[in-house]
């Protein structure tokens, strides 16, 4: 069975949807905001992501085909198998995404997606150029070894990415309660993009928000604490090369500075973002603790429990 590259096929839909969202915001005067250079940077990051997939996709696919040759299992290509693969791959996405925020080596690839101070459909396309170097393709290995064909796994991964496109918007406030209970929605994902102390390290879901509810990382969007988008320390540039590589450069400089122990060097690469050997930076946990010191009434509220 031949599975199409659905992300490439979705490019015309992405362009039309951005035009519709922009028209909505301009006509209604609400539902988000756009800015030329920010949007241009996001779109260039998206184009670079497609290019890196074309150039480096063979690494992951080669690894998956090697695993496929090892496994004696083959679940076939029925619709039920594809549906099951989609759900299990979404669970895979949850963990890769969680690692992406908790391990600096993976964050270096993912940080660019959070680097816009805007939240609109172009933000969805601000994707990594360096995902291959995180080696997170390993997390897909169990799916292949269980008998899901590599082409199917990549196909459902593409569907997952397309699903996540439309939730990058402020034009949709809340959806019916059952949808918000099960699915990742614009509201849930706005929380994920929030740099507010309350919203750090929350809502890692791709398609199904149930993973966050199951693993204790769900935080609801509060009307009293609107998400403030961007990074804890925002970028001072729109240069796509800086956006793509700044955290990798930061890791290199930190790891190679003189006078550190081996353990400290490893922590600069693999501990949580914000780790520093001298306490000069803050991790998400430290940011939350400092927030509670300033605003003790927030203790026990969502994101601080």
């Amino acid at each position, binding site marked *: 069975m031949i599975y199409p590259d659905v992300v490439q096929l979705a490019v015309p839909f992405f362009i039309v949807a951005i035009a519709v969202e922009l028209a909505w915001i301009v006509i209604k005067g609400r539902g988000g905001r756009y800015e030329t250079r920010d*949007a241009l940077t996001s779109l260039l990051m998206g184009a670079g992501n497609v290019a890196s997939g074309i150039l480096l996709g063979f690494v992951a696919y080669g690894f998956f085909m090697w695993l496929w040759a090892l496994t004696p299992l083959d679940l076939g290509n029925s619709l039920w198998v594809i549906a099951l693969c989609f759900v299990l791959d979404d669970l895979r996405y949850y963990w890769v995404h969680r690692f992406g925020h908790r391990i600096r080596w993976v964050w270096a690839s993912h940080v660019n997606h959070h680097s816009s*101070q805007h939240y609109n459909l172009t933000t969805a396309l601000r994707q990594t150029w360096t995902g291959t170097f995180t080696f997170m393709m390993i997390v897909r290995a169990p799916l292949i070894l269980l008998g899901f064909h590599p082409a199917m796994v990549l196909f459902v991964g593409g569907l997952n990415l397309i699903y996540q496109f439309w939730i990058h918007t402020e034009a949709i406030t809340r959806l019916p309660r059952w949808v918000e209970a099960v699915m990742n929605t614009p509201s849930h994902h706005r929380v994920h993009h929030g740099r507010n102390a309350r919203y750090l390290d929350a809502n890692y879901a791709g398609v199904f928000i149930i993973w966050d509810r199951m693993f204790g990382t769900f935080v609801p969007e509060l009307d009293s604490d609107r998400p403030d988008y961007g990074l804890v320390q925002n970028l001072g540039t729109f240069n796509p090369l800086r956006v793509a590589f700044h955290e990798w450069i930061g890791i290199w400089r930190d790891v190679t500075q003189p006078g550190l122990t081996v353990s400290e060097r490893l922590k600069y690469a693999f501990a949580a973002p914000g780790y520093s050997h001298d306490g000069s930076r803050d991790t998400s946990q430290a940011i939350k603790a400092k927030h509670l010191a300033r605003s003790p009434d927030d203790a026990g509220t969502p994101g601080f429990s």
Partner: protein
Amino acid sequence: MPLSVLLILVAGGIGGIALVLHLLGLSRIPPLTEGRARAGWLREYPDAVPEQISVAASGRAALVRTAQGAGLVWAVGADTTARRLIAPRLTDTAQGLQVRLRDPAAPHITLRLTDTERQTWRAALTGEPT
């Protein structure tokens, strides 16, 4: 999808969206006010309360003095970012100052300053007398 079609779609889409945004006036940079500079600083350094804020006449940057030292807030498109400055490398330019930082996410800041601002900001950022 053939690569040539994909390239045309991507290039045309990016160029078209950027052109429409610019024609809609969405390239404008709103000027910094003292209030925006204060909010922009506290967004990034909530524990370092500004004691004094000087907004440049250009409206693109503000010098922030705190008990922990000086820093800058500057416009990044319609938004801002901020940095504490510890031993920055400063270069005079025709339009003001260029600040170089050892920060891959903000390697340099181009400040548009009057001559008077350049002197006072340089002194504040380096601790040198004017």
